[in-house]
């Protein structure tokens, strides 16, 4: 299981990569492993829309379950990973790269303090049976 050190993680298994006042968001390796093969991705927000921390930005469906993807940070949606709709399996094969979901302009960087670093998140997933 992969937990890159340059990311911040939410207890609901989303990751955030921060570059200046911009953030890229996806779901963790642990999350894709738990969901297993993804068959559907749909963004539930549009470019330009504002989301508050905790609000849903996308829906995922695997052969096992459906799951909401919530943004752990507040911001304005800048970009949506359009190719994911046709190729949701990218989340399985490359969760931290081509499997990203949305990019946002952060409105409150202090929210980042509430997220976990990679070692804390790894401990968190191991408590839930991660490997």
């Amino acid at each position, binding site marked *: 299981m992969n937990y890159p050190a340059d990311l911040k993680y939410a207890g609901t298994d989303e990751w955030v990569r921060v570059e200046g006042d911009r953030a890229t968001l996806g779901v963790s390796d642990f999350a894709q492993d738990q969901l297993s*093969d993804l068959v559907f991705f749909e963004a539930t927000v549009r470019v330009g829309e504002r989301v508050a921390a905790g609000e849903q930005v996308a829906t995922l469906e695997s*052969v*096992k*379950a459906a799951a909401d993807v919530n943004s752990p940070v507040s911001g304005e949606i800048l970009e949506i990973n359009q190719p994911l709709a046709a190729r949701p*399996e990218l989340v399985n094969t490359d969760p931290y790269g081509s499997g990203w979901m949305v990019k946002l302009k952060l409105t409150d960087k202090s929210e980042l303090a509430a997220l976990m670093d990679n070692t804390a998140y790894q401990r968190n997933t191991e408590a839930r*049976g991660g*490997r």
Partner: protein
Amino acid sequence: MLEPLIYELSTPGRPGHRFPDPDVPLADLPEGMIRQDLMLPELSELEVVRHFVRLSQLNHAIDTGFYPLGSCSMKYNPKVNEDAARLPGFAHSHPLQDPSTQQGSLAVMYSLQDWLKEVGGFAGISLQPAAGAHGELSGILMIRAYHRDRGQPQRNKILVPDSAHGTNPATTTMSGLRVVELPSDARGNVDLEALRAECDETLAGLMLTNPNTLGLFEERVQEVVRLVHDNGGLVYGDGANMNALLGVVRPGDLGFDVLHFNLHKTFSTPHGGGGPGAGPVGVRDLLVDYLPGPVAAELEPESEALPPLYGLVMPTKSIGRVKAFHGHFGMHVRAYAFIRSHGKPGMRAIAEHAVLNANYLLAGLRQSYRVPFDRRCMHEFVAEGRFEGVPEIHALDVSKRLMDYGFHPPTNYFPLIVREALMIEPTETESKPTLDAFIEAMKAIAEEAHSEPELLKGAPHGTPFGRLDEVQAAKQLVLCCRPAELERAAL
């Protein structure tokens, strides 16, 4: 291919039936309405019969084997139900007949309503909803109408425990209300603190399955109900798990304001591909006027000379009609036959045996499978399909391997709060030897998981088809039946 498509069996010009020569002039179909591209299959009656009988023999059904599909109550569907539903007076009646000529059918509906009122502890029943989720939708629309009627439209929040059936949040969203998920506590009950925190002036209600989807009785159900009521909300009961309660506990007595019954689970009408469902809703007195309608009613009481006169009436504040005509009337007849053949003491025996069978399986499997929330279960329980030291084995592999042993798999990956969930529900209709055989098969699979994991990964090996590609099946949907040639041409 074990059995070709019916289009591939077609022989041009072969009729199934020969019609007598007409004794009236033939009318030609309008030119523009004749299509050449339909490619309807042409077969004899015998070929059609053999094709469908062969297909049916490839299937696993409750009539061919054990079917412990959790939360679905796949019990035996007694054939006497089918006899009753085929009585000409029922089978050949039409809902648009004058009510005076369908008194027998109306009497069955009225009596079924009465029985469901009695087992549910309710003041009123509507038989309209076509299935469980449809009953849910009707129930939540009633709750919404109730609050609006009382000038409280701001009550738009429905609380749904994280162990709930997936249809519960879907129902809420479809009703235009807001879903707030409640966590379960360490014993698998609703977390009371989380519930208290959500009790405010926007609370419309709570959807609760009891026993819940872990197969556990909500130990503080009365406190949960009281909290919701004290804060102005109503309690919706998901009756999918009524099989554990029949004749023992009445949801109405526990304070549930509305509940749907699944006739195709608890009351033995066919489930799945075997027939349409039926999801009657029962309500306490405060919601009787909101029931979807029309409902069967006694218009004139019995007199010395005449039996009662039955008819259909619309409740005064009804949310309206939710189904054409009388609902799935054929299912009402089957459920009524089931109830009458068991009688009052039989209702309780159903629940007792369903719970006993589930606990027997749980006791037999506890050593081989991890069981989270391990306490006395009701009519079903949830085990984990994963094993120490063999991380590549998942619940799905256990399920697929079970098919090689001649059993239908349990429900997989539900509820979501259990990892690699295997949800097992034997129902009351299985014998001890069947349960023992299932326990032995499950134990053998748990051993294979360690000794020969590839046997599980590649399963099933002995079924008409091997492991299907679930990813491709979910991504490349074929949504309608078209002739094979067209299908191939489209690819």
